[in-house]
């Protein structure tokens, strides 16, 4: 239930895995049975369209659905996202020059078998962490793309996700789901819900498409949370005590010239009581200020946003900016799968878009449903329990990781001081940070193989923010050997960085070529 990116992504992921609708016959096995996948979308509700940044996981999600990356670039105003660049998070304007660091999507060189972080500690005065261990941050300066026109679709020289126009993205997914994957699209408003004796949802009653029965109902109705929230009254767990931001002011900003560079990263610039996102699409930028209304007035937040737009795009752009206000309760539902209903997207929860976790949660939720689709009603409760455990864990890790960005700041505004207040820091995170004072995060800092944020992400944020991990007082037997190996790896990284800088086109050059020639599938 519900269109938008969440609804159509979920439909696409499930329909790409299972035999669905009229396409249900598998090649060479016309007898096989599929099921019907119906997406009911209200014709009256517009999609919110904020989630414009994705993770690298979106590449495989799109590829599995059978969407051409060329088509995706052309139809969704897509550009490459190679990570996030954080400005002024550490000290704000009080320092001589604005501080900044990059959290790139590429893990440090040889991360699987070598932890370079302790070795970088010895040279931290000479080079920043990201530049020392990964080529991606240095390529930002030239606004360079993560691949070439001769690189096949979805392949890369440097790992990447996307920036995209969410409205166009939902439309592309809709067309693909309906035309290629056999999803049935019904435009109607849901007016009532019929319950079964066991409390399941038996059917939904619509205004113009009659009664729609179903075995499993997926609630992608957005923040209204029509099924899980309104019907089942599954309560919200507020996370505002950890992450204060609950309001966003969003605007679209044109480029001064159509040849202006397209940023490789989502820019995140700290403000007095929040931060401003800045996402470069080929055709425009999406800019927004997300802040805590307990710490800032709307008026001041708006001024900060307009000042940012004016500084980067000129006074005219600031004067003409149409600012849209979005309010949200940071947090998630107590559980996501209840009876035969599972919520995905904003109906499950929403948190500030600091690490663009919204769409990846949709991808992961849809993928788990597609993979674990209950064989019958008896097993559904077991799958639901697994699903809830998995995603409650994931929400906790997201909150930990987002919070990590704040607690290392030295900014002195009340908002930032409140963020460093011990009562606002989740215990699990506080424990980890205490440990990281004495050992660098590495593979053992993540408990699961399918962890949302790899330990490399902790490294990039910690050391980007100037965090110090103390050197061990005692020596290990392998120290000398490891030291030499690290030196070689740093050199290899510098060499590879130079090679890539010399060979990769700019984002705009490559995107123009994709529009003209397209990427090859192989």
């Amino acid at each position, binding site marked *: 239930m519900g269109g938008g990116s969440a609804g159509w992504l979920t439909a696409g992921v499930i329909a790409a895995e299972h035999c669905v609708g009229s396409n249900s016959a598998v090649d060479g096995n016309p007898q096989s049975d599929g099921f019907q996948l119906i997406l009911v979308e209200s014709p009256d509700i517009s999609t919110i369209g904020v989630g414009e940044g994705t993770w690298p996981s979106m590449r495989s999600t799109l590829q599995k659905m059978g969407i051409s990356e060329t088509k995706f670039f052309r139809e969704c105003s897509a550009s490459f996202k190679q990570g996030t660049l954080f400005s002024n998070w550490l000290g704000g304007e009080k320092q001589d020059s604005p501080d900044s660091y990059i959290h790139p999507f590429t893990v440090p060189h040889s991360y699987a078998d070598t932890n370079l972080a302790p070795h970088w500690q010895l040279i931290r005065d000479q080079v920043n962490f990201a530049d020392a261990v990964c080529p991606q941050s240095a390529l930002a300066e030239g606004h360079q793309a993560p691949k*070439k*026109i*001769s*690189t096949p679709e979805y392949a890369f020289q440097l790992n990447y996700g996307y920036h995209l126009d969410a409205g166009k993205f939902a439309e592309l997914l809709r067309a693909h789901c309906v035309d290629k994957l056999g999803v049935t699209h019904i435009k109607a408003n849901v007016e009532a819900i019929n319950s079964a004796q066991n409390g399941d949802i038996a059917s939904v009653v619509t205004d113009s498409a009659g009664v729609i029965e179903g075995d499993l109902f997926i609630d992608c109705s957005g923040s209204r949370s029509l099924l899980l929230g309104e019907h089942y009254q599954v309560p919200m767990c507020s996370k505002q005590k950890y992450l204060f931001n609950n309001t966003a002011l969003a605007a679209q900003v044109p480029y001064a010239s159509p040849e202006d560079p397209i940023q490789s990263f989502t820019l995140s610039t700290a403000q007095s009581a929040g931060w401003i996102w800045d996402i470069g699409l080929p055709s425009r930028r999406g800019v927004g200020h997300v802040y805590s209304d307990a710490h800032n007035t709307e008026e001041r937040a708006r001024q900060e946003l307009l000042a940012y737009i004016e500084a980067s795009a000129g006074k005219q752009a600031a004067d003409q900016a149409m600012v849209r206000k979005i309010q949200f309760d940071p947090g998630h539902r107590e559980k996501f799968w209840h009876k035969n209903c599972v919520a995905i997207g904003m109906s499950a929860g929403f948190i500030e878009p600091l690490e663009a976790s919204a769409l990846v949660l949709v991808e992961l939720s849809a993928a788990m449903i597609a993979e674990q689709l209950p064989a019958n009603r008896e097993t559904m409760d077991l799958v639901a329990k697994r699903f809830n455990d998995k995603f409650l864990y994931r929400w906790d890790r997201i909150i930990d990781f987002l919070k990590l960005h704040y607690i290392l700041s030295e900014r002195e505004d009340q908002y930032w001081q409140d963020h460093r207040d011990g009562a606002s820091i989740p215990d699990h995170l506080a424990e980890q940070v205490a440990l990281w004072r004495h050992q660098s995060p590495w593979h053992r800092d993540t408990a699961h193989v399918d962890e949302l944020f790899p330990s490399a992400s902790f490294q990039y944020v910690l050391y980007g923010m100037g965090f110090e991990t103390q050197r061990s007082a005692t020596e290990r037997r392998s120290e000398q050997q490891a030291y030499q190996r690290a030196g070689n790896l740093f050199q290899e990284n510098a060499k590879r960085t130079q090679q890539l800088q010399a060979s990769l086109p700019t984002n705009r050059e490559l995107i123009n*070529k994709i529009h*003209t*020639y*397209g*990427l*090859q*599938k*192989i």
Partner: protein
Amino acid sequence: MSNYVILTKSAHKDTKVILDRGEAYGDKVKVALTFPQEFRNIQSCYPIFFVKDGETGQFYPAAIFGFEENENLFLTDQGWDATYIPMMIRRHPFLIGFQPGPNGEKAEDNPVVSIDMDNPRVNSEKGEALFTEEGNQTPYLEGSIAGLETIHAGHEHNRVFLEALLANDLLEPFTLEITLNDGSNNQLLGYYTINEDKIRDLDGDTLSRLSKEGYLQAIYMQIASFARIRTLIDKKNALLPKSQ
């Protein structure tokens, strides 16, 4: 650098073109673009693979002369050691250019023959003349212009040929690792070829369509050209220092 000018009777009546083959004339190249029209001749001498244009990412078929950059194993002190030399090699120093016509024709509809005056083949003393004493085109120039026209048509042929191959999912990446007689390894990297199994699995309608458009023959010429990899290896081995 190249310096292409439009070929005219008046400006080029004394111009001559050296036809010798050699490194000095820019013949030391690893690959040359080719076209289905000359596949029959190409496959009798060289392997044909598909490569991507670095600027556009688009595929084109290429005749392969060596393993490394600027390696042409067919080039010897005596010239080019093969019975057929690809048209894209023979075209030099000429090129088809485009310019708006005198009667308002659009540039893309008005091909003109250009000559690269900085090409080392071009001079006024040695080689083949372009025009006769009477100012007529020499048979050499006539042949060259006919070649340019074939090339011009060949680019369009390549485009539709590749479209047909890609639409039927017939290309696949191809890497060849060979060990020479001295134990050293050489690689053919970054090439694409036609997947024979997929050709075999095509349904009758598709096969018939490919055949009618002349693609099926080109497909099998490319597959047959695999045998010429042996020629490359033999030539490379022959260059190794003789063992005691």
